[in-house]
């Protein structure tokens, strides 16, 4: 909403307050003023000129040489506008003038002819092209004959004005009218307001006698007022009216249309003007459209209507889409003499639906959508009739043609001052409350200690006691509210065990050298299930904005790989990233997908890189595995953790494993398949993804101290030769199983394949630690346990002992 302070001054006295201060007060009281637009843009030396003579430039077809009376002298100005002509009153920027955009006007010579200034278009005075009346859109603006040469053109054009740009919240549709703004500003400044005085002379002929009215869809159109004005002379509007409209962001057309737009802005009530003769039937019927019915609207587009759209018809065919746009067939034109003024209440939902379906949003539809003031429907029609009599020479027929079943009862709200003060934590007196409501012109009575309020129909946002609390608080001032803290039972607050463990996981991974990434949940169909630990039906958007972001992900890996590629492409060759986030497995019975929190990581490039010391190590499977083991250890889940060689699509067939917790699959670890790596411009890249939710929900033993050993432990080393395909994990499991209670630890310390070892075999060496917390072990006991281990290795894995 653009509010011209010049126009606002017609209703409320704002002469004694600086515009910046006014804007600040309005903002603090609840309507945000986004900007203050100075329409003068600091222009000076812009005056009215009279074109006494105008001839073609001998050297240039498109230029005219004009002799212009600018009051104190007559001076020569070269003008390039096609519409300049002798006898016009025009806007002249004199030498020394500075136009918007820091455009300085100087004396100049154009093709050998002197030019002392410039004849201006409205665009050159910073009026947007779309607001300039069509007749002057391609050339200079022509002032009315009454303009006096030499007089300052800015006030004449209403450019000595400051416009407040409101950012209105949806509840304050009352401020979508100048009168609504006047009520608000009046309340803020504790001033009364002056409403427009509406009076005109009616002709003897009655509107009812020339126009019939019927509404067939009363629930969508509970009130319709039509007035008829005869002998209208369609012409350009007076300058003040055009100025007001342009300041409000509306393009002037002709006096009849401009009047409907002016009243729309003044009252917030959209009006429509029909050419009575073009209606042809002397009848208006409001009804729902027939399915597929067509109408060509004012913008010359043919619209196909649906059965629920509301239309205004002449009893036969549509002449307007109700509340949205008029029809071309009944448009007011230069030759129009009789005008029908329509002022109606159209149901917000109906207008919203129709304007959305037709893709047509207008000043009218936005107001209907929010619900116009029922009291102003008739008032606005009267105001328009008055202006048509005054400005277009019309004769207003007596009375109106009306259908009215609209409920105009004000909402009654009862609220006690105690409730208001308790809710705010304040102590405002009853007198102060009454005074605020009085400033807002909200009729209130104090009845047995309570405020009984009849909310005015212009304030549709006032319905419940909280709305009144807000009115009082915002005008009393939010700065006056004290600062307290909630009293009552105190609560410990804190993280749940799950949330605390999630923080531990993050801290571990970051301590291990990984940065936390944050990627999008929406992805492409192609990537939705790639690397997913578990797949389920994909959750798809109804109206995606792009294929890339059309479904919800089931794995975090693809976007992490994307992040790795992004960094590598920017010469950050070593990337270590992790992410915790949800994957979406749907659809469950209640229609929502199952959301499972996962943790995933990606490593590529170097893991160790100490250049001057010559230490460098690429990331590999075991770096990632160490990270997984450490992470699981940090949340007490190392014991049940195991890894099982696996073949997974998109992964290196020999360097991939499933991660298991207590025998249950919880994750994936390994190298991306070289083909996939190449596709993504990555070198050797490792990933892991784990169902974090499952891990964090697995019970953990409490941390309990075990005594620091008082007795020595004994170590024995074993070197074995086994078949290449026998995994270290298998051997370790055999050792653990056979070692019994005394075996405390098994550690692999050597792995060798190659020369000196038979083809198809490999050599491994383990260090075994035996220990009893209660006493020192004897050699015999250790030998006994160790022999068992050796036997099991030979029997179960065909291991051959070395050395």
């Amino acid at each position, binding site marked *: 909403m653009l509010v011209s302070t010049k126009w606002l001054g017609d209703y409320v006295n704002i002469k004694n307050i600086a515009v910046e201060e006014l804007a600040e007060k309005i903002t*603090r009281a609840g309507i945000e003023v986004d900007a203050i637009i100075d329409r003068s843009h600091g222009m000076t030396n812009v005056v009215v000129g009279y074109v006494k003579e105008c001839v073609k430039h001998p050297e240039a077809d498109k230029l005219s040489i004009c002799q212009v009376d600018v009051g104190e002298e007559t001076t020569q100005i070269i003008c390039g506008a096609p519409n300049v002509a002798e006898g016009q009153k025009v806007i002249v920027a004199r030498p020394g003038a500075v136009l918007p955009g820091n455009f300085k006007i100087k004396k100049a010579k154009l093709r050998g002819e002197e030019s002392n200034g410039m004849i201006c278009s409205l665009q050159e005075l910073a009026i947007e092209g779309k607001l300039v009346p069509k007749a002057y859109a391609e050339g200079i603006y022509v002032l009315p004959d009454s303009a006096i040469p030499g007089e300052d053109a800015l006030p004449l054009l209403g450019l000595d004005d400051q416009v407040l740009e409101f950012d209105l919240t949806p509840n304050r549709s009352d401020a979508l009218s100048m009168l609504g703004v006047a009520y608000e500003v009046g309340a803020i400044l504790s001033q009364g307001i002056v409403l427009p005085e509406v009076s005109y002379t009616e002709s003897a002929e009655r509107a009812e006698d020339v126009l019939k009215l019927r509404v067939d869809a009363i629930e969508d159109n509970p009130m319709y007022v039509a007035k008829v004005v005869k002998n209208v002379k369609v012409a350009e509007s007076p300058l003040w009216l055009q100025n007001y409209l342009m300041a409000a962001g509306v393009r002037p057309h002709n006096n009849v249309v401009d009047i409907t737009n002016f009243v729309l802005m003044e009252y917030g009530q959209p009006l429509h003007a029909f050419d009575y003769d073009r209606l042809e039937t002397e009848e208006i019927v409001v009804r729902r459209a027939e399915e597929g019915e067509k109408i060509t609207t004012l913008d010359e587009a043919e619209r196909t209507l649906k059965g629920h759209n509301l239309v205004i018809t002449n009893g036969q065919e549509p002449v307007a889409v109700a509340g949205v746009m008029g029809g071309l067939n009944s448009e007011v034109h230069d030759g129009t003499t009789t005008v029908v003024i329509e002022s109606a209440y159209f149901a917000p939902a109906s207008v919203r639906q129709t304007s959305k379906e037709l893709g047509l949003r207008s000043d009218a539809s936005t107001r209907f959508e929010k619900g116009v003031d029922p009291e102003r429907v008739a008032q606005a029609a009267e105001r328009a009739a008055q202006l048509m009599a005054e400005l277009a020479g019309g004769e207003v027929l007596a009375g109106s043609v009306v259908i009215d079943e609209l409920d105009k009862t004000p909402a009654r709200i009862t609220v006690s001052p105690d409730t208001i003060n308790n809710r705010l934590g304040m102590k405002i007196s009853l007198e102060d409350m009454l005074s605020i409501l009085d400033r807002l012109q909200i009729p209130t009575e104090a009845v047995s200690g309570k405020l009984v309020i009849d909310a005015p129909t212009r304030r549709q946002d006032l319905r419940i006691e909280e709305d009144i609390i*807000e009115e009082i*608080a915002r005008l009393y001032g939010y700065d006056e509210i*004290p*600062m307290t803290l909630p009293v009552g039972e105190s609560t410990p607050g804190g993280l749940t065990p799950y949330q605390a463990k999630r923080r531990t996981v993050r801290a571990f991974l970051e301590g*291990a050298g990984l940065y*936390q990434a944050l*990627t999008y949940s929406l992805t492409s169909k192609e990537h939705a299930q790639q690397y997913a630990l578990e797949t389920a039906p994909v959750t798809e958007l109804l*109206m995606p904005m792009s294929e890339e972001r059309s479904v919800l992900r089931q794995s975090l890996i693809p976007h992490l790989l994307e992040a790795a590629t992004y*960094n590598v492409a920017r010469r950050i060759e070593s990337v270590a990233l992790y992410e915790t986030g949800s994957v979406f497995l749907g659809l469950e019975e209640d229609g929502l997908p199952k959301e499972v929190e996962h943790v995933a990581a990606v490593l590529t490039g170097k893991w160790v890189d100490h250049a001057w010391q010559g230490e460098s190590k690429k990331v590999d499977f075991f770096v990632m595995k160490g990270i997984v083991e450490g992470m699981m250890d940090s949340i007490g889940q190392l014991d049940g953790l195991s890894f099982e060689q696996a073949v997974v699509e998109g992964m290196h067939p020999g360097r991939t494993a499933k991660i298991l917790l207590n025998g249950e699959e919880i994750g994936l670890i390994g190298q991306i398949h070289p083909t996939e790596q190449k596709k993504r411009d990555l070198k050797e890249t490792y990933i892991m993804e784990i169902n974090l939710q499952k891990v964090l929900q697995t019970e953990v033993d409490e941390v309990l101290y075990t005594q620091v050993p008082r007795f020595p432990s004994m170590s024995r080393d074993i070197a074995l030769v086994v078949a290449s395909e026998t995994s270290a994990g298998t051997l370790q499991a055999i050792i653990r199983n056979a070692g019994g209670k005394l075996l405390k630890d098994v550690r692999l310390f050597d792995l060798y394949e190659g020369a000196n070892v038979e083809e198809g075999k490999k050599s491994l060496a383990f260090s075994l630690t035996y220990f009893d917390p209660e006493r020192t072990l004897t050699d015999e006991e250790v030998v006994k346990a160790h022999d068992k281990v050796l036997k099991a290795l030979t029997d179960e894995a065909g291991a051959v002992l070395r050395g």
Partner: protein
Amino acid sequence: METQLNQLKDEALAKIEAASNTKELNEVRVAYLGKKGPITDLLKGMGKLPAEERPKMGALVNVIRETVTTQLEERMAHLEEQAINEQLAKEAIDVTLPGRPVRTGNHHPLTRVVEEIEDFFISMGYEIAEGPEVEKDYYNFEALNLPKGHPARDMQDSFYISEEILLRTHTSPVQARTMEAKDGAAIKIICPGKVYRRDSDDATHSHQFTQIEGLVVGENIRMSDLKGTLSLFAKKMFGADREIRLRPSFFPFTEPSVEMDISCFKCGGDGCNVCKKTGWIEILGAGMVHPNVLEMAGYDSSAVTGFAFGMGPERIAMLKYGVEDIRHFYTNDVRFISQFHRTEA
């Protein structure tokens, strides 16, 4: 004999002085003080001397031996020290060479902001509530006083999965779910999480972003409690001398609704480019929980009141750290994330 002895002494002392390392010195020791050395020989030859000369000569031999021994030990100590110093000199390093870096990562800046906010409210007795990112229309809109057909819930603005299911557009549905689950009991929660809106990604918009909201419900919760809580929060998050101001606003789920500004932390209120010359920065939206919202969740709005607030960690991070483009938070450029590794306190 005396002359012989003194000659021997001078000779030994000269060799001690000439020894340039411990090995040579040891050779000198063996040569003069050893069992086969000249001094021992002299002592052995004492028997041949007349008895009256023996004590005198004996004393002289001992003096010589002591002198040689002392000199030898001193020289030995000196040579040992010299050897150590030479060794240490060889071990010297260039201390200006770079240290061995300790590999660490760090929180994403948004997590950093979210955890800072969480920790403040935890210290005030709040719990953290979480909920699904794919929500029912009911919890995302209806339960928050946004009935079907309400203009603020345009299909164009939300990612719908079906008529009744969508990606949540705010974390408020977690509040609705918590209220429903608490069954009339008092509530003090913070709800952080990812939310989604149907926006094209640009410098100031992101189709996915984060939100953190708070909700307090109980008997006699007042707007002054909201103001006091937010003021403490502003001081914790943006500096002890921050002031706040509330401006009336509108949200369907609160009434009255306000927006909170803080005094600019960059210029202190004088006006700068961060606060767009106003001295104030808009930080969050808040209000008293709308009675319809309480009623729908099963609370008696005549007995129980509440306040709620919500903010965007992206906006806070952008203001706090001076990040100019919201897309930085989602491109995962290591050069961006790694800048948020150190503490500020």
